[in-house]
């Protein structure tokens, strides 16, 4: 640990409080979420595990996990990174940091209430929108309290030019309240009739996990990868092309082929999934060429490794989604473990990894201290990367096998029994990921504690400087 506090710029200083609240609570939610995931995963080894407690049944811990990760970590960390980027890229201090902090606290309160509600059996039942109505109001207010000041910061920027990152982040800023309010109004407050509910739920899920996280994640990647590798973004227009695809096409995906709805909806979704692969390829090319098509710039920079991994995961998720849409067997493939594999790649392999990379860069700058255990950053990268692969790859293979066996009209119980080996491997992956999150949280809190200890020590030495002066020096 360095002896003293490094100089912190005024911009970073303005972001310090709200971002610390956002990042530390995000890391905390990640640990909580993965504990739920681990409980859920262990139930596949032994269905009787914790089965007698209604609040720990699989159907409750699973949504508690996805909500803790998506709303607790992804959105929260994403907002933090967005605030910092708007301030940093605009060369202006964060507007109204106190209200932003209050917003972050309300957001966390909302997520806490929501997850307790889910565990208590109050879930709405719609995937990725499970938090009950009373919690979503808090979440929404919290978001608005943060987003308004993000928009004001963007508006007040001193460097007027807008980069590709600005496009992505600014769009994400108002995309979330739109989809979140639509879904909550039409599904929870004034529910529409019949299967239109399911369509809206799929639309929301797709727009949140693919479009919104895509916008935020890519905005982060296109800023940090050039910055950290010390090269310029390879092609600005390629980035904008990915933006157009994300905004215009990706929001149409998400309706599965097996859905009991008029056929044009799944058809248009399949077209959108296939077209979206162009965006994924554009991102892949851009990231690759920015790094000079070699992994040399990544060496010695674990933060950059996170970001590059995230870019690769984005491409892979896009390709997997397009491939499954093109297959004739898409109807049943989507309902196997293949679906969760792609989803995990979206919000964890892509988004959370980008978030880790960005937070590891931003946090030391906010505090002016470096991490207490810098080597653990590298360990965290490897543990998370291997962990996520250990979940995604077995799930995808398991899904493909399940699908093939279902097509061969084998009895379902036999098919499920054969999937057990893959689920066991995925539990190993979950354990590794959880370990990574504990390291992440430890490093973050360690840095904050170290910072306050240094500050206290400095303040103490300033206060007591007089006392220890030689007697003669006193006036």
């Amino acid at each position, binding site marked *: 640990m360095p002896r003293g506090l490094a100089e912190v710029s005024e911009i970073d200083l303005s972001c310090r409080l709200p971002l610390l609240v956002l990042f530390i609570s995000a890391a905390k939610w990640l640990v909580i979420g993965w504990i739920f995931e681990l409980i859920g995963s262990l139930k*596949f080894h032994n*269905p009787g*595990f914790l089965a*007698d407690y*209604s609040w720990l*049944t699989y*159907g*409750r811990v699973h*949504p508690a996990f996805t909500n803790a990760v998506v709303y607790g970590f992804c959105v929260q960390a994403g907002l933090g990174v967005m605030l910092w980027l708007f301030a940093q890229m605009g060369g202006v201090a964060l507007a109204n940091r106190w209200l932003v902090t209050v917003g972050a606290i309300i957001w966390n309160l909302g997520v806490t209430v929501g997850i307790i509600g889910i565990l208590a059996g*109050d*879930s709405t*039942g719609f*995937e990725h929108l499970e938090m009950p109505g009373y919690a979503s109001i808090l979440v929404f207010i919290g978001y608005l309290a943060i987003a308004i000041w993000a928009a004001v910061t963007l508006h007040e920027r001193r460097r007027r030019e*807008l980069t590709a990152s*600005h*496009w992505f982040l*600014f*769009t994400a800023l*108002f*995309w979330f309240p*739109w989809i979140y309010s*639509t879904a909550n109004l*039409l599904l929870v407050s004034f*529910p529409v*009739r*019949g*299967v*239109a*509910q*399911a*369509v809206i739920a799929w*639309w929301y899920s797709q*727009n949140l996990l693919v479009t919104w996280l895509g916008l935020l994640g890519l905005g982060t990647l296109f800023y940090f990868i050039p910055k950290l590798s010390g090269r310029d973004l390879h092609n*600005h227009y390629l980035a904008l092309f990915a933006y*157009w695809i994300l*905004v215009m096409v990706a*929001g*149409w995906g*998400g309706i*599965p082929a*097996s*859905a*009991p*709805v*008029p056929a044009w*909806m799944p058809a*248009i979704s399949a077209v959108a999934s296939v077209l979206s692969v162009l965006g994924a390829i554009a991102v892949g090319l851009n990231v690759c060429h920015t790094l000079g098509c070699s992994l040399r710039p990544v060496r010695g920079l674990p933060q950059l490794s996170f970001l590059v991994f995230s870019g690769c995961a984005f491409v892979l998720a896009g390709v997997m989604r397009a491939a499954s849409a093109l297959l004739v067997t898409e*109807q049943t493939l989507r*309902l*196997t473990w293949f*679906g969760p594999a792609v989803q995990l790649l979206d919000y964890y392999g892509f988004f959370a990894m980008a978030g880790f990379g960005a937070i590891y860069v931003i946090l030391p700058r906010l505090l002016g201290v470096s991490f207490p255990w810098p080597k653990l950053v590298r360990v965290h990268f490897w543990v998370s990367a291997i962990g996520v692969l250990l979940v995604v790859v077995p799930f995808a293979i398991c899904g493909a096998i399940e699908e093939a066996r*279902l*097509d061969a*009209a084998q*009895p*379902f*119980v036999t098919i*499920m*029994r054969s999937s*057990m080996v893959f689920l066991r491997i995925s539990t190993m992956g979950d354990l590794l990921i959880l370990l990574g999150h504990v390291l992440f949280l430890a490093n973050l809190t360690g840095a904050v504690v170290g910072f306050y200890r240094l500050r206290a020590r400095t303040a103490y030495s300033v206060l007591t400087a007089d006392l220890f002066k030689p007697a003669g020096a006193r006036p």
Partner: protein
Amino acid sequence: MNFGPIIFLVAFFGLCCSWLGLVLTPQIQIGRLQQTNTIPAGVVYPVQRPGLARQGLAVYRANGCQYCHSQQVGQTGTICDVVLTDAGTNETSTLVALRKVRPSFSEAQDRQLLAGLPKTIREGITKEAADAAVKVINASGAKATAWIVPVGPDIAEHWGARRTVAEDFLFDYPVLPGTQRVGPDLANVGMRLPDANWQLRHLYAPRSVVKDSLMPPYRFLFEKRRIGRSPSPDAVNLPPELAPEPGYEIVPNPEGSALVAYLLSLRASEPLFDAPLSVAEATTASTNAPAQATTSTNAPAK
């Protein structure tokens, strides 16, 4: 690149399109869906689930059953069978017609066939071919009908007779078609496994009825109580190793009863205009009628 308002307009337009396309249009098209009639019986479908089953849907939602069970049977297409129902009075002309319809069979086989009707004479052909065959047979004075049979991996698993359609969820809130199948599809579980006590026992101790089941036991939906004057009709039939001590019985609590009522009300298999299917005429078309105990009851889940 410095076009702030333009970014806003572009993004706004993109979001608007997707919102109009997948929120507003579905609401216009299927959000105002009305009840329909079954074909050919002409019975109103669907009818509201009974009150207890509606409470059961809330239990289903609260415990997140939809994360492991879908309610969307898919089908890859339909095929037709031709069924000979009546040989008519002119056996010779019927035999001639039969030879035309299925030239690969011998006359002796055809004669044998006429002995016990109805019999399926062609299987797995297209609707056009089936209609043509029916026309030939009917012209000879005999009677044949074309049977529409949906096919696909889900149907082969016996999860339903036809694909699930929008009407099946008309009165449900929330609509939970599910996204993953860790367990079997439940769109027709009330048809497939209509025995309430089987369902209760399965919820209480899944592995006692389905070997190697991955489903966790839901014992919090049950309570153990002392047997009163006579055993409760709802008491779960348990094998000796799971049964409570003598004088006690395991009965579902209100949530457990509601959940089973909901499961038994899942019977999405009526023939509809958008999901055609031929059914025997004797079948009643009402959907939420209590389960008929005609099918075998304790068969393991397929």
